[in-house]
């Protein structure tokens, strides 16, 4: 009997009963994808791979780690010193967290630039924001596990934020801690949740992909495909393009893992947690710095009703929540910033604003930059962050005159340029 026939017979037998091969073929091989995706579209699949790396290394680390305040730090050092390739697993995991965020932030910025959140992809976008929130919770709790000084004090600072909630705040904090301070019960539950949430992430990502495959990827022109000539099958075109992107990603990521594994960490986390000694500057991991700057920007009570601490907490969480509203704040029917001459500039201003917030978040608020207090810079940057979503984006979308859109994806490709193409194109895309 010949092997090929036997395998294909088995595949058919299974597929008739459970059409998983048809499904995979449909969603991963034939899946029609715009032919003009740029390298900015690599970051979605990269984020998925980053999550797989995190889960794989994380499971193996969990087999060696001890979630107890007396043993956590030592067990991490044991992984670094005595577990076979333990140092590699741990550096892959700790740097993997940073690189997961780098990839996801680029993925989000790409969505912002090319208007990927617009109709009919609003739910896709909302699921993306849910993924970001889950990632942030997972990363925060993971950072606590080594039980170093920054672990302990980050946990203390962040959980204490909930005490700003009126009336029940203190009760919430006690409930989160499982006691009256950050202690063993806190570490235990953080470990349990740090192990659980990545699998919740997998579930939400599956739904994110489901929503994505309903209409397919947006593209750099931001216009819908007009016919089969605008699309190409995912395999082999994007499987190979994503593979190339993955190889480049691995070179950079592994470059850090092998040659600068502690570059993105804080030295204080190599000091065992000590509840009696507060570090002079408590700073979160770099990917939380912009939110930290927003939190600290509010040093004044608002209208005698909202105390400063609560105000900062509301804005910090609000800085993410506001992303949920973005599809409705942006009224422009044109997706891609290529055809939005004003939005394009404000997009880069927003990007710069995020960098400034990150820089302020890394510094002590009482410092200054050439005489300008960091606090003031942080406040202005916070003001712009929210102004960008609540004022600038709605205003631009009403005032801006978009450039003419090309009539189809393949047309500008054939004519060698999108901006000049389609003199007769309507400025608005019927979505």
């Amino acid at each position: 009997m010949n092997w090929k026939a036997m395998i294909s017979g088995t595949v058919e037998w299974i597929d008739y009963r459970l059409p998983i091969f048809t499904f995979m073929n449909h969603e991963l091989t034939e899946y029609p994808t715009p032919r003009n995706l740029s390298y900015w579209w690599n970051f979605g699949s990269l984020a998925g791979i980053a999550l797989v790396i995190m889960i794989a290394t994380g499971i193996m680390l969990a087999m060696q780690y001890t979630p107890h305040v007396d043993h956590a730090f030592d067990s991490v050092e044991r992984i670094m010193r005595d577990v076979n390739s333990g140092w590699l697993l741990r550096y892959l995991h700790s740097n993997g967290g940073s690189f997961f965020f780098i990839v996801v932030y680029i993925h989000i910025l790409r969505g912002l630039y090319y208007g990927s959140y617009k109709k009919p992809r609003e739910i896709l976008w909302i699921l993306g924001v849910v993924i970001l929130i889950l990632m942030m919770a997972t990363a925060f709790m993971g950072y606590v596990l080594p039980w170093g000084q920054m672990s302990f004090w980050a946990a203390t600072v962040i959980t204490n934020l909930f005490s700003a909630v009126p009336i029940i705040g203190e009760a919430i904090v006690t409930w989160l801690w499982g006691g009256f301070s950050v202690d063993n019960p806190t570490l235990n539950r953080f470990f349990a949740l740090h192990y659980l949430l990545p699998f919740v992430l997998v579930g939400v990502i599956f739904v994110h992909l489901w929503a994505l495959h309903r209409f397919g990827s947006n593209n750099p022109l931001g216009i819908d495909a007009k016919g089969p000539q605008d699309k190409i099958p995912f395999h082999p075109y994007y499987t190979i393009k994503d593979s190339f992107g993955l190889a480049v990603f691995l070179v950079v990521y592994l470059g850090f893992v092998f040659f600068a594994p502690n570059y993105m960490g804080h030295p204080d986390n190599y000091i065992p947690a000590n509840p009696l000694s507060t570090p002079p500057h408590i700073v979160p991991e770099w990917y939380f710095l912009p939110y930290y700057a927003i939190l600290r920007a509010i040093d004044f009570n608002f209208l005698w009703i909202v105390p400063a601490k609560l105000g900062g907490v509301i804005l910090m969480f609000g800085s993410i929540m506001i992303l949920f509203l973005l599809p409705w704040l942006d009224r422009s029917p044109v997706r891609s910033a290529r055809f939005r001459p004003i939005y394009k500039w404000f997009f880069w201003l927003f990007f710069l604003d995020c960098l400034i917030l990150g820089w302020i978040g890394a510094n002590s608020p009482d410092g200054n930059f050439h005489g300008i207090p960091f606090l003031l810079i942080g406040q202005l940057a916070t003001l712009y962050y929210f102004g960008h979503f609540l004022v600038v984006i709605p205003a631009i979308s009403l005032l801006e005159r978009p450039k003419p859109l090309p009539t189809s994806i393949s047309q500008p490709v054939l004519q060698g340029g999108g901006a000049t193409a389609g003199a007769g194109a309507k400025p608005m895309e019927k979505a």
Partner: protein
Amino acid sequence: MKTLAKSAARSATKYALGALCGLMLGTASVQAAEGVKLPEQDWSFDGVLGLFDRAQLQRGLQVYREVCAGCHGLRYIAFRNLADLQYNEDQIKAIASEAIIVDGPDDEGEMFEREGRLPDYFPSPFANDKAAAASNNGAVPPDLSLMAKARFGGADYIHALLTGYEEAPADFEVLEGLSYNAYFPGHQIAMAQPLDDDAVEYADGTEASLDQMARDVAAFLTWTAEPKLEARKTAGIWVILFFLFVTGVTYASKKKIWADLHKDDGSKE
């Protein structure tokens, strides 16, 4: 016409290499707390290919054992780990046997003291933090195992600190029992100057200047903090070369696979 893909790939690779090169060369200046610039030293373990200097690690161990160990522990280092420093088993056993280890309880339920053995860890000089504080004017001497990773500047900081004891500036008042140090955050350190010229007599005949000893012990503590540094770097070279190769292969494949598509539509992706 060159494709966008090509230029994007080129710039992506450029950034990647740029980021790596930046790391390989190290940052231009290392900042300690309080904004004091640390003098940067040359270390054998600097850079992509830099590994430990075994003779230096052995000298550093000698400084640790003869000077630092009086007050500072090295709790994550076991005597067996000294094999990394190219001591043979007899030498390590000899070093271990000089340590007094509290073991037990024995069959009578009593704790007892015995000579150190290979699997034992370097014993802590004090029974507990209270005892350490009591004998050190209230300050607990920190364990040194991870010191090179637990301070900004790492080995540079350790070297700077050990050589940074000097006369306090006229307008600076040093509290009683503390010493002035140019590189310690706040400049007042509870540790009196631990090293001075010829504090040890090196077994290999190297001149034991203050600078030399500070350098050797800083290198030794870099090893205690990151004992897998050499395994990491040597593996890293091959891993990066392999993935650069994969990058090249996937890039060539990508170009080939997309070629028919670009032919279709003229040029631009």
